[in-house]
């Protein structure tokens, strides 16, 4: 089972955890850091996660180039079996959490590719499936 830390500026991380809990009841699988809400030194929390989390571990951050991501990279970049994913969204957290395949970097990249923000395209052409296709 992959260990997961999600870190953000403000309450995005704990907000994602709240959404994950409603959708799956698996919120307790996530460690979160809501940075900059007060003067608390959150880099310590990153180091604590790195020191204690089972491997493999994934650290999700909110924004490439943001200071939270920078701090995570500084602390975790050279750690074995810790992977950093940035520009996180709810879809990728759910995809990783609900995934049943053994962990690999290439599979993680697949999940990331399937979890991108997407413009919703409405098409009137939604042909009705027929029962024959359904049971095929």
């Amino acid at each position, binding site marked *: 089972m992959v260990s997961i830390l999600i870190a953000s500026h403000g309450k995005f991380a704990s907000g994602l955890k709240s959404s994950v809990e409603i*959708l*799956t*009841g*698996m919120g307790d699988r996530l460690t979160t850091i809501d940075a900059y809400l007060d003067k608390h030194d959150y880099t310590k929390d990153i180091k604590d996660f790195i020191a204690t989390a089972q491997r493999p571990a994934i650290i999700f951050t909110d924004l490439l180039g943001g200071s939270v991501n920078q701090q995570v990279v500084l602390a975790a970049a050279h750690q074995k079996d810790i992977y950093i994913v940035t520009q996180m969204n709810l879809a990728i957290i*759910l995809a990783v959490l609900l995934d049943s395949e053994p962990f690999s970097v290439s599979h993680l990249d697949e999940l990331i590719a399937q979890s991108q923000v997407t413009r919703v395209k409405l098409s009137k052409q*939604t042909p009705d*499936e027929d029962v024959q296709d*359904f049971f095929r």
Partner: protein
Amino acid sequence: MIAQLRVDDRLIHGQVALVWTKELNTPGIIVANDNAASNDMVQMTLKMATPTGKKLLIRSVDDAIRVFNNPKAKTMRIFALTNNVTDALKIAQAVPDIDGINVANVGRFAEDAKNAHQLSSTIMLTDVELASLKELAALDVPVFNQVVPSNAKTPITSLLKNVDN
């Protein structure tokens, strides 16, 4: 066979699409709902919510019953959805092969919610729905409440004790 018949006022949504189809290992999803069967917009949103690789049928309740009783349905694990208890009862009375009925989320967005009978934080029933649920609970099939798989299955009979008879 129906691996689970779920009553959920949102039909296919995050919990169902992502979590339950995995948990139940059901390649096929059938939405039994008269409104969805006749509304293109609703069908579009349901298709959007269906996970890649899963098959979806959207049918009126009567048509869905015919599909469930199709001989080919015997060999396929099907996840069935209605958005109210009365439709679920109709299916349960007409389809012999149902593993379990999960009354998950129902009635919370109904217009006359203040007159509703509250069985749990996710089940609010009108008089008609409550009567249907009592009939459903009397059938020879497990009826329970389990919003997400990590919740325990609560038997409906124990939740029915929360409302006056």
